[in-house]
């Protein structure tokens, strides 16, 4: 009897487990009647004007240095405005080379002869056609200069030391020639032959500046240079029939330009070299009394909560960069980060990126000015709305170039007093209570 009862318990357990497994694959009835859902849900997009959420804007310059950019911009009266020159200081020349002697062993020969040398640069020809031709000039730069702080007027402009150029624009220089780059023939290469005196000076003099200035002679042009080096042809005393080529790379480089763009008047500026950042202060409204579309749906005043906020974005309208020589020639990569210590601006630490990367077309800051861009800041606004009493989440946004600095060009957006003032665009979902019936 007891054994039989135990058998029944075992059977019941199996049946129960089977039923539980089956229950795991439940598929509930799905309504086919949209009116059967006992809740009214509407999603509406709102545009909050600057006057209802903006606390102020400010643009700050001076972030980074042209010396950090891998590209050297040279220009000559570009768009009737911009002059820019490249400065480069090379590493010391090699004092020996490794060659194989008569026995075939690899030995270091310190009794070398530098037979020739060439300063080589590569131009960015991505936008050039085969008929494009640029002429460049190069000269030896004797004056001491600091790559990080050098500008058109000053060779050194660091804290505690300011030294002007003898002539504005990193002058004077001892010219060692001109070179012409014909894109259709020589591709992107620009080659200056160094004379023997210059080679001797750069090779022998322990305190030689080994520095050069490169100018663009072709008027009205702007060219980006990269990959500068000095290529040396070296003869060995141990292997006279052997020629060794060595590339000497720069230890410092930068470019200087004029004119310096004026500080933006009320606009938001991003980019340039050194780079500009703009800070936008937000006072996100927690109670909305408009617009009409919202009041019609949900009634006003409407309490804005993070639960009802599906998207928030800051809408900026681009404006033409002036002077136009500073207009971006490639996509503008924007980053947006919360300002963690507004009191420490412009050097406030910034929070994590809110957008990752936002690419804006270059035309938007020239012929296509007036284009609107949405910068998604949903998480940022949600944190403001969710803030508990006594806490103060960041309310300022820094808009900056993803790479600081990227190049000499910068982008500008309309400020609060402009027709295209920033707008806070919200996607809000409103609902009445989920009903029982």
């Amino acid at each position, binding site marked *: 009897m007891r054994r039989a009862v135990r058998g029944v318990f075992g059977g019941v357990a199996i*049946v129960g487990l089977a039923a539980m497994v089956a229950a795991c694959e439940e598929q509930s009835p799905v309504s086919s009647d949209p009116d059967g*859902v006992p809740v009214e849900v509407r999603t509406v997009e709102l*545009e909050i004007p600057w006057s209802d959420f903006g606390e102020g804007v400010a643009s700050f310059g001076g972030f980074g240095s042209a010396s950090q950019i891998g590209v050297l911009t040279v220009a000559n009266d570009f768009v009737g405005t911009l002059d820019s020159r490249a400065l480069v200081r090379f590493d010391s020349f090699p004092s020996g080379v490794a060659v194989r002697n008569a026995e075939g062993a690899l030995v270091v020969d310190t009794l070398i002869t530098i037979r020739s040398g060439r300063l080589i640069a590569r131009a960015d020809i991505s936008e050039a056609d085969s008929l494009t031709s640029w002429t460049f000039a190069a000269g030896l730069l004797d004056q001491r200069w600091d790559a990080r702080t050098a500008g058109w007027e000053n060779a050194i402009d660091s804290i505690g030391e300011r030294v002007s150029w003898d002539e504005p624009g990193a002058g004077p220089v001892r010219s060692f020639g001109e070179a012409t780059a014909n894109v259709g023939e020589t591709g992107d290469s620009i080659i200056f032959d160094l004379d023997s005196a210059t080679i001797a000076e750069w090779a022998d003099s322990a305190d030689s500046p080994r520095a050069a200035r490169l100018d663009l002679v072709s008027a009205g042009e702007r060219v980006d240079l990269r990959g500068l080096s000095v290529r040396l042809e070296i003869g060995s005393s141990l292997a006279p029939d052997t020629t060794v080529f060595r590339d000497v790379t720069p230890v410092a480089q930068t470019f200087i330009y004029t004119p310096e763009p004026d500080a933006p008047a009320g606009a938001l500026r991003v980019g340039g070299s050194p780079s500009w950042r703009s800070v936008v202060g937000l006072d996100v409204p927690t109670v909305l009394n408009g617009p009409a579309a919202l009041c019609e749906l949900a009634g006003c005043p409407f309490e804005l909560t993070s639960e009802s906020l599906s998207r928030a974005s800051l809408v900026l309208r681009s404006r033409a960069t002036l002077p136009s020589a500073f207009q971006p020639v490639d996509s503008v990569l924007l980053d947006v980060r919360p300002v963690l210590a507004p009191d420490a601006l412009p050097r406030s630490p910034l929070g994590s990126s809110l957008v990752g990367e936002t690419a804006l077309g270059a035309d938007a800051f020239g012929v296509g000015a007036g284009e609107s861009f949405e910068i998604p800041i949903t998480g940022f606004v949600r944190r403001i709305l969710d803030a508990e009493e006594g806490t103060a989440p960041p309310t300022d946004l820094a808009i900056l170039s993803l790479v600081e600095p990227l190049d000499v060009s910068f982008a500008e957006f309309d400020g609060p007093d402009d027709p295209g003032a920033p707008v806070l665009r919200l*996607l809000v979902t409103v609902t009445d209570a989920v009903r029982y019936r």
Partner: protein
Amino acid sequence: MMPESSRSRGLLLAGALLLLATPVEAQSLLSVDGLGFPQVGLTGRARALGGIGAGLGGARLSVVDPAAAADMIASSIAFTGTSSWVDATENEASSDFSTTRFPMIALSYPAGSYGVVSVAFSSLLDQTWEDQRSSTVDIGGGGQAFVRDLFDSEGSVSALEVGWARRFGRVAVGARGGRYTGSLNRSFTRVFDSVTVGSNVPAFQTGGQWDYSGLTGIVGASASIGSQTFISGSIRVGGEVDATATEGTDAPDEAISMPSDMRVGASFLLAPDLVANAGFQYSDWSEADEIGRAGWRFGGGVEWAGSRILGKDGAWRLGAQRAQLPFVPEGSEDATETLFSAGLALELVQGETGPLGWFDLTVEFGGRSFGNVQEDVVRSTLSVSLAGF
């Protein structure tokens, strides 16, 4: 006298089953409309014999026939599991869904000459359903957003009752009383596509929850008439179900006027071991909800108990039922259900005074129709009863 180990094992099993009991039984698109889909925790035997559950005869635990426990001579536990597979067609669109639930669990304890005490937990209204749809919504200013809306309703109205049953000669009476219980959770989720709102943005969600309470009860009686006829009937007193919105729910409290539910049934001994049964059920939901109306069901079947299955005493059953369902969706004139059933019973343990363990397995098939909707239904019900522990 029960062995102590068997008693404790039985109590453990009962406790585990109470934890598992999920008293909902979403079986139809009709769950969407009105207050849900009315259903009770009928046993496999009751479903096989017409779906009424009254007038079946025999000593057993039934949530619709409290007097049926009067002749139970050993403590027992019974539970029922039901699985449904539904293929619904509306115009030319079709969908299918399935559910598995435990709509009833009950315990009984004979109290000597005082009668039989029982506890039952059963579902009364299934409110589980969901709505999913993808659409493009107008967000104003000429803009549009692609969204996916999910609405989920999950819950049921259940009853937890304590009862008593006793035989007085040829008549047995029974009653149970208790409380409505259960809850309803409803949530709405709107998911925007990432192009609209960007990535890592939580979906919009809102919802509400109501807890049920209120008093309910059921009384019933049965009688043998002659040597071949047995009748029984019961009335569940509906009363009011209070649906109390929990904290954080914006919607107001609700009150549902649950209708009384009346069941009568009779069985007639056609031949040794061959019994015919018929019954009728009626409840008027017109006061409960604006789309409610009188619902009724009649059904019947035959049971042959003279067979042996797998070496055990067993029974075979056939039945049919027809119902007018109480909630009719807007735009529909009628909602009906027709089911045919076949089932078997198997005695698992035979005691000195009768069976101590058995199960009933029933398969129903048929359809429901309302408006443009046609549901093809297959439903299996497994009931297990254990006694003597």
